[in-house]
Every structure is written in structure tokens, then in C-alpha cells.
């Protein structure tokens, strides 16, 4: 028994020491790869694949080859850390417009849509979407089965039990966009990180399905938010006449909350105040 343990320990230690020796002996600087190594050092190193490359080192190689890739396929996790962005900018000799690249995911649904039938099929949103546009009254209502929760590397998406939908916590979300293709209803959109007012409805073209009206919480196209904003003298909301929806100019918005107040169907919400509730510790 003792010999067994000793041998295992000895071989493990030898392997560790050998790796260390190789790490020290083999020269660190290689022609053609120094820059990639330098960039790679400042990347998150978790190989999440959100940028579209198989790993962080592959991304570093692509960025060194073509610095524009940093803007075309931005690394969302990197953008959260100002310091590392600066270091990579210095290494490549370029500047990146962090403001415009920084995004947050937003689920365009207000929830509370009426459940019209019992669903006991496959426990994923994609499964539910295959069956006659799901089991909620609105064909654009979030099912809340959590396909997006499973893929989120930041653990930023949570289930809002009261509304029966998923909600993204903008403080935790880093806008990597892995959740966007997961939603079979295309409810998730990447919005600029500075978004103040969120529009929570996606009711759209599938209007002629009998029994699938919009829920009572969807946008009623009443223009009250538009008028309220005008009256306040801010005019941050424009009215899209074709789709009959408000377009919110997030730069002009002062977050006075008037539009949220007047909206009778609770379609508008303060995006900055969304927060993931702390999970209560499991008690025995």
C-alpha cells in the first residue's frame, strides 16, 4: 500500500517537475509568435468560443493577423476589463471603440402570457417551439424553459418566477451573444450596454393564428409613452409609424421614468434596475 502511494506520488511529482523544467528551458520568445503570445496573455483564456474561434489562442492569432477582427468579432469577456483592452491595443498599435462594441443581452418579452395548454414534452425551448408555436397564448412569449440559461457562461440569466420568463441581469451579462441563437423565438437581442429603457414585447408578424392573440401585457401601440416623453420636453422617443412601435433614443433619455409610468401594459421597463435575485441558500 505504502509503495503504491509512494510510486504514484513520485511519478506525479516527476511529471510536474519535468513540465516545469521544459517550461523554463525552452525559450519563451519565438519568432512569429511573440505577438500572439502577448495578446493571448491578456485574453480571458476560458475558450468559450463566443467570438467564433475555437479557443483564445486561435483568436489571438486571428487578431494579430488582422487587427480589425477585434471589432468584427469582439471578445465580450475582454471588453469588460478596460486594462486588458488597453494592453492589447498597445501591443497591436490600434484603438478599439469599446463603447460601441460593449453589448448586453435583452429578452424582448414582458412575461405573464397566459398558458393555454399543458406542455409535458421535451424540457427545452427548442422542443416546445416545434409544437404549434409553443404553449403560451402569445406566439412570441418566452417559454421560460431555460435553453439560454444553460449556455450562459456568466450565469447572468435567471428565471423570473412571477413573470414565468427568463430575464438577463445586465450587470452580470457581458454581451458574448451565446444565448442569442439558443432562443427559438429570436426574443434575445444584443443591445448597447448604455440602454436605459427596455422594450419588452416581440409580438409581430404571426398575427393571424386563431387563439394566439397578444397577451394583455404586450404593446397596445397607444403612443402614450411617445406623448409623455414629448410633454416632458425630452423627446427621446420617436414613433415608428410602420410598425407602430416606440424607438427609444438611449442617449437622449434621462431615465425620468415617465414613459414607464404611463405604459398601461408594462411593456417598458428600466433596464438598469434589473438584477438577479440572490439564490436563497438551501436549508435542510
Amino acid at each position, binding site marked *: 500500500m505504502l*509503495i*503504491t502511494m509512494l*510510486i*504514484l506520488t513520485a*511519478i*506525479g511529482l516527476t*511529471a*510536474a517537475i*519535468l*513540465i516545469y523544467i*521544459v*517550461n523554463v528551458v*525552452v*525559450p*519563451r520568445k*519565438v*519568432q*512569429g*509568435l511573440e505577438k500572439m503570445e502577448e495578446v493571448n496573455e491578456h485574453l480571458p483564456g476560458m475558450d468559450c468560443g463566443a467570438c467564433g474561434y*475555437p*479557443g483564445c*489562442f*486561435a483568436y489571438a*492569432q486571428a487578431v494579430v493577423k488582422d487587427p480589425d477582427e477585434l471589432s468584427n468579432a469582439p471578445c465580450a469577456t475582454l471588453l469588460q476589463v478596460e486594462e486588458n483592452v488597453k494592453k492589447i491595443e498597445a501591443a497591436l498599435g490600434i484603438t478599439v471603440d469599446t463603447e460601441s462594441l460593449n453589448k448586453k443581452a435583452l429578452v424582448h418579452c414582458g412575461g405573464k402570457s397566459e398558458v393555454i395548454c399543458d406542455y409535458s414534452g421535451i424540457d427545452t425551448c427548442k422542443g416546445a417551439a416545434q409544437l404549434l408555436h409553443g404553449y403560451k397564448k402569445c406566439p412570441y412569449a418566452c417559454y421560460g424553459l431555460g435553453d439560454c440559461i444553460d449556455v450562459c457562461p456568466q450565469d447572468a440569466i435567471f428565471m423570473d418566477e412571477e413573470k414565468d420568463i427568463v430575464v438577463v441581469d445586465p450587470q452580470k451579462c457581458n454581451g458574448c451573444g451565446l444565448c442569442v441563437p439558443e432562443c427559438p423565438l429570436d426574443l434575445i437581442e444584443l443591445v448597447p450596454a448604455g440602454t436605459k429603457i427596455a422594450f419588452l414585447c416581440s409580438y409581430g408578424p404571426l398575427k393571424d393564428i386563431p387563439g394566439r392573440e397578444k397577451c394583455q401585457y404586450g404593446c397596445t401601440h397607444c403612443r402614450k409613452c411617445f406623448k409623455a416623453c414629448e410633454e416632458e420636453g425630452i423627446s427621446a422617443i420617436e414613433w415608428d409609424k410602420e410598425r407602430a412601435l416606440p424607438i427609444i433614443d438611449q442617449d437622449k433619455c434621462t431615465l425620468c421614468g415617465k414613459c414607464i409610468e404611463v405604459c398601461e401594459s408594462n411593456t417598458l421597463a428600466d433596464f438598469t434596475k434589473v438584477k438577479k435575485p440572490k439564490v436563497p441558500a438551501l436549508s435542510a
Partner: protein
Amino acid sequence: MSDLLPIFIRMITTSNIVLVMYLGLCPFFGVSKKLGPAISMGLAVTLVMTIAAIATWVINYYILIPFDVEFMYIVLFILVISSLVQMVEMTIKRTNATLYNALGIYLPLITTNCAILGLTFLNIREEYTIIQSIVNGIGAGVGFAIALIMMSSIREKLELADLPKSMKGLPIAYIAAMILALIFVFTFGGVV
């Protein structure tokens, strides 16, 4: 020496590690969509198999058998192979950028792939000498590469085929793999 060529050919054909022994099926289906990555993967597997064959032979005959702890071979082999591959990857990455790019991310990924571990167990079960183990490793790697390259060529063509929706992608790949395996078992089984 005269038994080396038969070992080599046997590992490519009648004992092909993927198509006859059914080891390493995960990369066989995962990396066989395109020809380029398949060649990289085949190269990486051949390299790691050769290294693993040498390392595990030394461990087995100079540590496990003298100390009478052969029952630990699975744990020790995994440990040794994965740390060796770490070292090789580090060295290649810093000395030869072209080779590193050719092998890509597959080198660290296959450290404890079942094909590699299976090959080292096979070496011990057959009681091969070190030369035979090396040849066995190279043969298994080449066999793996050939299977992967054949499969990826077939799958590239299958992409263009007019298939029913339910057969597209993996289902037809499984059928192609079955036919390939049948060819390997029966044709080569009769010849070699």
C-alpha cells in the same frame, strides 16, 4: 525484426483502431467534417501515440512490474501521457510555429483519448518489446489518420448529396462509417 512490418500493416488494416477496434470514435465523427482538420488530427494522434507507446512501455517494465503494482496502470498511464503531451505541446508551440498551426488545438485535446490509452493497453497485453510498441503506435496512428481522411473525404461529398432531411449530417455519417468498417473487417480480413 521481421515481425515489425506485419504489426504495422495489421494496425492499419485488420486491427484498424477506429474501424475495427471501435476506439476513438469521438474525434472520428467530431473532426471528420472537413479534410484539413482531419489531416491535422491524424498527425497529432500519430505523434501522441508514438510518444505514449514509448513512455508507457518504460513505465510498465521499469516501474510497475519491478514494484509489483501493475494494477495501477490505468491511473499512471493517464498521468504520464497527459503530462508528456503537455511538454510536447509547449515545446512545439515555442520552437516551430508552422507545425503548431498544422496540429492546431488537437494536440492537447487528445491527451487521454481512448484510442491512445487503448493502444498502450494493447502493447502491454501483447507483451511487445519497445521497438514493437513504437511500430504498433505509429501503425495505429497512421490507421487512425487513414480512417479519418477517408471519412472526411466521404463526408465532404455527402454534403452535396440530395438526402432526406432526417438523414443529413450525423445519420448518414454513421451509415458511411458502418460500410467503411465492413470493408475493413471483411476485405482486409480475407487478405492479410
